[in-house]
């Protein structure tokens, strides 16, 4: 059913006339042109489509657009502020924590959610928190290093 749905997307208000049952992933990628959020498995088990909904990592292929009405949604495109990269983005570059880069947006947003909840997360806790996000290239050790580095910087800037 087409309905009007309003929410905050990357700090800006948006309003859409859209079938409320459509998945957030496809609305972001097609209607809104934000293609940084990736399709990986379609069943919420690979983490590629992770976005932040009210600061919590959410697989956007599993959540309907009507369920984010009134919510605060952040995608990878919303992390950079005035040309300055987020500490997680910087750390992923510095640690070379990617290869093909396809899982990277989901990894970064998952880590963001994890560190928001637990800013002092240990490596073990980061590892556990990231468990559901898949990467086939094997960038894992560097992703953990990058998240640890970013955690320190994020704590320092609080």
């Amino acid at each position, binding site marked *: 059913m087409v309905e009007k749905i309003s929410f905050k997307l990357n700090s800006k208000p948006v309003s859409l006339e859209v079938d409320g049952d459509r*998945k957030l992933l496809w609305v972001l990628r097609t209607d809104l042109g934000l293609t940084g959020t990736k399709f990986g*498995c379609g069943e919420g088990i690979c983490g590629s489509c992770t976005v932040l909904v009210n600061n919590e990592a959410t697989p956007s292929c599993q959540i309907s657009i009507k369920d984010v009405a009134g919510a605060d949604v952040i995608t990878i495109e919303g992390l950079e502020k005035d040309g300055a990269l987020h500490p997680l983005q910087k750390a992923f570059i510095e640690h070379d924590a990617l290869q093909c880069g396809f899982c990277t947006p989901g990894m970064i947003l998952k880590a963001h959610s994890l560190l928001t909840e637990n800013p002092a997360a240990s490596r073990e806790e980061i590892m556990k928190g990231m468990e559901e996000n898949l990467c086939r290239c094997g960038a894992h050790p560097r992703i953990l290093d990058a998240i640890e580095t970013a955690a320190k910087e994020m704590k320092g800037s609080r």
Partner: protein
Amino acid sequence: MEMGRREFLKRMGILGGGIIIYCGIGEKITSAAQMPQMPGFGNTPVDYNAFVRIGTDERVTCFVGKIDMGQGTVTSFPQIVAEELDVDYESVDIIMGDTDLCPYDFGTVGSMSIRMVGPQVRNAACEARGVLKELASEYLKCPVDRLQTKNGAVFDKANPDKKVTYGALAKGKVIEKHLKELPPLKSPSEFTVMGKPYLHQDARDKVTGKAKFAGDLRLPGMVYASILRPPAHGAKLKNVDVSEAKKIKDVQVVQDNDLVAVLHKFPDEAEKALSKIKAEYDLPGTGLDDKTIYEHFLKVPVKPDILNQAGDLAKGRGLAKEIFEETYLTPYVAHTPIETHTGIADAENGKVTVWASTQTPFPLQESIAKTLGLSKEKVRVITPFVGGGFGGKGSPNPNRESLAAARLAVLTGRPVQVAQTRAEEFFYDTFRPAAVIKIKSGLDGSGNIVFWEYDVYMAGDRCAEVLYNVPHHLVKVYGGWMSPPAGAHPFGVGPWRAPGAGNNIHAKELHMNMMAEKAGVDPLEFRLKHLKDERMINVLKAVADKFGYKPARLPSGRGIGMSCAIDANTYVAHMAEIAVDKASGKVEVKRIVCGYDMGLCVNPQGTTLQMEGSCFMGMGYALTEGLRFSNGEIFDRNFDTYHIPRFSWLPRIETIIIQNMDKPPQGGGEPGIVGIGAIIANGIHDATGARLFNLPMTPERVKAALKKL
């Protein structure tokens, strides 16, 4: 070159001035280029295979037909150019895998990018430097031998203020030069860029979401197509009813021979419409499943190729005091790049442009042209960012998503995107073939290997050769991934990162440890005793040093596994520490050390990533990955049943690169994966005494092997 000169120069953007240096494949490289005999490979005339453009804006562009799918050649090719041309690394751009702009390339496979095209790029850059010096000589009125190049400028050694930039020299000139003679290259002592670590050049785009993969491109009026797929391989469509799908608003249904597709401006709506199509199939069934496949392989008629032969096996058997005979089984394994196969096609004025997630843009260009009945020049394939490939995203994989997109674009007159679902990705994968390996070998009374009889079915010959000193040996290869015998496989197979090498090394190196144990000799000592190649010995010793290896007889209880191999011409050794939970059968990999001697390592940073990544990816085929199927139906359709390595598996991974800058660069992307099955199997044996002859080494199999002790 088929296109007109003027058109070509226009595409190169140098009509207003610029310099292009081509570099053809030398005789030495040609034989390697012809090595892969897959469809579409090596049958197109090669005029040149790398070139460099120097623009009037001081930017240098390197054009190669290879693609980057994460392996980092997007960084290492520019390093090569910057080095030989004496320009800042930051001023080098690279265009890869565009059939209109780049020289022909058979595909990005086999760790061959830097190995084969690297030297050509280097030659082209070196020659460009020579041309620039000649131009500068005229411009500065100074003899060439007094000139030197640095940071994109030529200057007079006697008077460094007397200088001219490359861009200024390129102004107003259209210079093409086809390199005929090998120019004098820099010596390793002069290197300032090659051999130094560089981070991924494209990382910023990847962390901000700006990197555009095929599925991220948006063309005006583009629609998304979902395609009717059969439930099993070999299934024949009996009848189809699309009436319900047609009722969905804005859906276009296309039926064209074997192709039934639904198109919509939203991909999720197209998928929904597809689910409304009713189709009936004939399911003939192959009678094959993941358990019966191995017996089947042994019955497939195939004449073996003899890979290695020396001495006389009968004589070797006569010398043996101990005989070792074993069979090793490895299953079908899927590539599962996180980006599924995706293609977009736009047909306009008789020309078709396709953006494809492919490893083989040029063979794809040919197959699209053939499918559409167009000449090759009317088809352009552009390779945007590719989200992983591992051998699964190009020939012999047909890139059927891109072919379908091209057909649909022509049929409908609209730009069409086809992105495979995860289930399609599994179903249509060109899997690493399952394989059977049989080894018979023998030791004499002094612990020397006296014979080695090796039969490999379906994995192919890579890393099947005899690495160790064995006087009497015979290696026979019964079919491989490249040209599988008719009737062998119930679905497509193809190259999977170091194709077949992981299967062969698992069997060979497990067998080595079996003999070392019987000989009562430490497995490192046993290997060193039978190795002759100094570079192999050096790498193995370097890895053992880094590991802190102390000799012990097998099984030592410590859980240490080791292996060595020569893959993609790179010498590679691995060591690992493994722990086994005997109650659950669960295997934990605690530590891996991996060492390479790949000759000149252009980018040690990128190579380190490839080593880490391939070691970790290898843990999947070692521990969990094995496709489940029956009668052409694929049971694994997503990551919930097909388990690839994840964070909690992560061991400490350490790497060593032995720089050998005087030697040509060899493969980097694959050698790191070849020993992982072997080191884990050997580690399990060293920890517990149990041998795992079959992959993957699941907890159930580990428990079963422990029970046999």
